[in-house]
């Protein structure tokens, strides 16, 4: 009950900010539409109907149809499921790995810190798109490949931030006190350091979600993401780009959810950051 009350207080603080309210509304809309895609979609997302190709928006097809007659509204809903599952799954995995490696680098011996820093810097030195295309070329286009790309791209950033904060907290009084009372490294890391570093990183992760959505859409647009006929906002964009002169609504159907999701998570993340760390307000 206490936790629910705390969440409710945070929500109320978010909605007091106009951009926060908009962001939260968009995120809730995107999440709910993805969760209830089965119920909301009028057609299976992969059902072909060449006779109905390039139909503009109507009551039968709320966002129109694509070049092989698939219902775009259904594809957008199911595409949201793919985008969010990759965004949440990959960001979650990146967070877990990044936090673990950051804690180890910050709290462990100097030589291990140096090795890990070298690995982080090596990964960060690759341009994201080139790294993504290289990995997908090696592993082949699939959902897992996209997740792998996101994890490899994101982990160094999270790990570096956690490492820096761990280095600071390592010599903090409460940590030294715990150590003098005989607490082991594992307890110090999980009980005394982690709770103090996880807040900012969670906010940062929420702001990374639109980046991950864009990476997935970008790879799918290039034919290197999820495999057809699995709906993806990027592949819808690709279908639409090829026919943009005649049927602009396909690009709109693919592009709009990417824009709304990006705006939603960005506004929400920025509002959360401003609430929890007012010193950063307006600096990014």
């Amino acid at each position, binding site marked *: 009950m206490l936790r629910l009350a705390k969440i409710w207080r945070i929500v109320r603080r978010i909605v007091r900010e106009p951009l926060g309210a908009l962001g939260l509304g968009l995120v809730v809309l995107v999440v709910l539409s993805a969760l209830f895609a089965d119920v909301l979609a009028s057609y299976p997302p992969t059902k072909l109907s060449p006779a109905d190709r390039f139909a503009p928006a109507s009551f039968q097809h709320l966002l129109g149809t694509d*070049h092989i007659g698939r219902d775009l509204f259904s594809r957008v809903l199911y595409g949201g499921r793919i985008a969010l599952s990759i965004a949440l799954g990959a960001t979650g995995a990146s967070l877990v790995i990044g936090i673990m490696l950051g804690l180890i680098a910050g709290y462990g011996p100097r030589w291990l810190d140096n090795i890990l820093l070298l690995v982080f810097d090596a990964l960060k030195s690759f341009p994201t798109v080139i790294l993504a295309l290289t990995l997908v070329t090696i592993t082949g286009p699939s959902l897992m490949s996209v997740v792998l790309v996101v994890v490899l791209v994101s982990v160094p950033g999270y790990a570096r931030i956690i490492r820096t904060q761990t280095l600071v907290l390592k010599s903090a009084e409460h940590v030294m006190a715990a150590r003098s009372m005989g607490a082991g490294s594992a307890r110090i890391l999980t009980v005394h350091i982690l709770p103090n570093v996880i807040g900012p990183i969670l906010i940062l992760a929420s702001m*990374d979600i639109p*980046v991950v959505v864009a990476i997935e859409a970008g790879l799918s647009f290039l034919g290197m993401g999820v495999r*057809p*006929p699995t709906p993806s906002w990027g592949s819808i964009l690709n279908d639409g780009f090829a*026919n943009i002169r005649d049927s602009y609504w396909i690009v709109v159907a693919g592009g709009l959810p990417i824009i709304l999701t990006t705006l939603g998570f960005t506004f929400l993340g920025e509002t959360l950051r401003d609430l929890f760390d007012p010193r950063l307000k307006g600096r990014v």
Partner: protein
Amino acid sequence: MSNIASTNLSRRTVLAGTGALGLASLIYPARRAQAAGSILKVRSYSDIQILDPAFRLAAPEGDITNVIFAGLVVATAGDKWGWRPMAVETIEQLDPLTISFKLRDGIGFTDGFGQMTAEDVKFSIERIADPKNESPYSGDWETLKEVEVKDKLSGLIHLKEAFAPLWTSTLPTPSSTILSKRAVTEAGGKLGVEPVAQSGPYLLKEWLPKQRTVLVRNPDWKYEQGGYDEIHIHPIEDEKTAELGYEAGDLDYTWTSVSSISRLKENPPADTTVVEKPSLAFVWFGMNKAVAPFDNPDVRRAVQYAVDRKAVVDAAYFGAASTSTGIIAPGLIGHREKNLYDYDPDKAREMIEAAGVSGQTVVLDILNKTERLTAAQVIQANLQDVGLNVEIKQNDSGTFWTLGSKDNEYHKKLQMVVQRFSMQPDPSWATEWFTSSQIGTWNWESFDSEEFDKLVVEGKIELDDAKRDVMYKKMQDLMEESGCYVFLTHEVAGVMYRNSVAAALKPNGEPVFAEFKPA
């Protein structure tokens, strides 16, 4: 990603920087265009991988070798298939087995390789014909006996047997290109992407992979001059992308997608001519019988029944193209009137279940192009309907064209492919690639038939059109009966070019770059 927060880069800075870059990109092409002069900018559908005429991989490579190396003769532009002398002053068929030629006196090779001689002709033609060299185009000189050198510039081409496609799909193609014997020998027997001893009206000046190939006028070429100082060839795989590039002013000539032809004809871009040409190319969906589950003939037959060819072609080409009955287009000797197997999903389902492969997942490789992807998705839906799951694997051109090569380990795993071949105006060109000797080269389906191989040879030496017609129809029957092939379409060719360009096109819309001129 997340370290954005730790930098001093503000959103305003990013926006300002992006705006400046955008403005610069608008200004740069305008200035470049003003400075362009006599430059023709064209699109090809794939990048070059090899510039050795004997080992060319795709038509765009042939388009380039045709202008940087002199062939005995070269195809001409126009509404009828024809040729004109290029490296020869005269060429004449003395009898069905003998062709005499005399080279022009003033053709030299670049890089200090001297004058083109009859010895080079002998070397180049016998090099393609020699089975030891494993040229995929050896069939173009199937009945060659030898090239006899009479003197420095003259010689005789002797055939073992008459050769029907000699003047249609052998001599006017890169298979009659003459290379410097010394240059090729010094290069180890094969040329790469940096050609030596060029001899044509243009020279390859620059190749930027995936960006452009630049040809410049050859100052030493004394004969028919090209119309432009430079030709810039941009490899753009997707026709739709090329259309956007054309409309943005980056191209002067491009093939269009079939699906765009009617729109472009009704509403062409400014100062543009849009032309529709009958295509000889053939597109098919193939199954590799060397790889499970397609090593089972019943599975292959089931897939033939399962694919709704009309739906595939209608969806991929928006109704602009018709389904095909084989690999030989209407109007050519050997064109079939109908297919042996038609769409029957119920029968397909039964056969898939009986073969015990229901629920299996198979991989369909395609070139990363809009039309192929659409065709593949309809095939995927058709096969899912009868119990086979299909994973579509999109490949860029560099990867795709080597998938079935024996030099690529993947050829042992390749299961299904949607494929398209260009075509010359003789049926022998179409059947050439499906002989058993082409397995691991161009025959990616591992189709092998002794009868087919025999007919391929006989079809080339038979001069009676009626008899050839029967033979080529039979060859396509054998292909379809094997279960390896689902014939899809011959497409149609859409071409658009600036009104400031006098485009030189073969009857099927393919370019003859050397004959392009400013209008």
